[in-house]
């Protein structure tokens, strides 16, 4: 499976990681190498398998408030806050 420049740009956008023009080739080589490794999976015979019914059991709890409000403590380490809100660059124009 080969990866071209546009694929890298699409992946970078999906993963929200900036990949610069001069990094694209190196990133592409690294990814291709790993994809060659994982392509070995295609040769595996998985036809006889039934659906995995051993799903981990999802524990549920009562729908009751069990946590205390710790906003100040939790926000103390945030990069940028105001009045209990997290500040980010403008989203809408």
């Amino acid at each position: 499976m080969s990866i071209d420049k546009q694929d890298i740009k699409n992946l970078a956008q999906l993963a929200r990681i900036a990949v610069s023009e001069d990094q694209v080739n190196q990133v592409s080589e690294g990814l291709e190498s790993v994809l060659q490794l994982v392509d070995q999976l295609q040769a595996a015979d998985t036809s006889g398998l039934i659906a995995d019914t051993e799903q981990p059991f999802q524990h549920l709890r009562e729908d009751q408030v069990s946590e205390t409000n710790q906003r100040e403590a939790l926000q103390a380490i945030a990069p940028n806050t105001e009045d209990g809100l997290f500040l980010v660059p403008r989203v809408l124009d």
Partner: protein
Amino acid sequence: MHNLTIAEIVTGLQNRSFSSVEITEHLLARAARLDKQFNSLITITENEALEAAKAADQRLAEENAPALCGVPLIHKDIFCTHGVRTSCGSKMLDNFIPPYNATVIDNFNRCGAVMLGKSNMDEFAMGSSNETSFYGPVKNPWSPDCVPGGSSGGSAAAVAARLAAGATATDTGGSIRQPAALCGVTGLKPTYGRVSRWGMIAFASSLDQGGPMARTAEDCALLLNCMASYDNKDSTSANREVPDHCAKLNDSLEGLRIGVPREYFSEGLDSGTEQAVQAALSEYQKLGAELVEISLPNTGLSVPAYYVIAPAEASANLSRFDGVKYGYRCEDPSDLQDLYCRTRAEGFGEEVQRRILIGTYCLSAGYYEAYYGKAQQVRQLIRQDFVDAFKQVDLIMGPTCPSPAFAFGAKGSDPVAMYLEDIYTISTNLAGLPGMSIPCGLVGGKPVGLQIIGNYFDEARMLNAAHRYQQVSDWHNLAPEGIE
């Protein structure tokens, strides 16, 4: 004092041969003097350690002090420690001061242990050599131009250098067992679900497990007794009683059936390592065990399956690092996209970015079934190989790594060369089984490890086998030079 095992420290403290403050001061001084050679610690918590040691000494003077009261330990910098930086080896969390403790840390506090500091690790636990840490590589105390293994390289090196008698670590594809083998220490990855993952920074949620590292199996049993617990804050935590892992340590091995997988002894295994492992297996026969040749036919698919599943889960887990609520944020972001994209490009190292991109690819529309779906099916095949094997045998043994510690940079620029280091350990994580590594020899002056794999929740039997071997061998007592 630094040559004492945890069991000996516990006895020494109870008998008042020395105090917790004395041994803590001794180890802090050792770290300050020696760790510049190894770079095994990211943060040394001197004040917290001395305060905890004083409190422990008071409790020791009263009745019923808890099991590890006053014992100094090191924690891998992946466990959230309230008020103490937890970096996960990354620039992304260089400024992260957790507002809570991981359950594992709370468990150790309840047991009365003293935290000396946080150990170095591959960034976000992604690596097999501790070369990817933002804080620089860790050096193997046995051979300073060689890697200690990873991702728990800091914990392994610190225990090998006797900076502490024990440390915590985590294992997703071999990250406890492989560095334990390369540094000549004992390390154990519990059954998936045995140790709570609450507060343990997530890499691959269906594979991650925290576990102990120390110089002996007995010490690992003492640490595991403390680390293991049912935790309702971790929905994958096993609601199952924690046995006393020390109770069966001295049981006889007469009649124990040990499976030796033929796939773990084929090409790629260094001959010196093979000899050391075969010698260990002969010792087991002398102890009364029976060796049974078995096959784990899907072993060859384990590395490819892992390198789909782990990056896929990592890409989801690491999406929380966006510069908004905690951790690194890029300067002067122009808009929200720029905030995300540049924070993550600047905050994450190359290997982490590569794995996120691979994971994103395998989970993307059009590829999900072919990659992630297929890998999960292959995972079932791998699990079934073990289930079948455990019908004939009680434990499985083989080499932990294909060869002893390699030089820095030896794996070159091809990531796959590094990935193949984990070839014997990875299936254990995919199957969710417990595994451990114990020292079984030296090859060219560098340690090699014997891997022991147990059935689900059978840690006590693995520890028993390891302990009996350590009673008739000396590999685990050897120390590297230059650490006096």
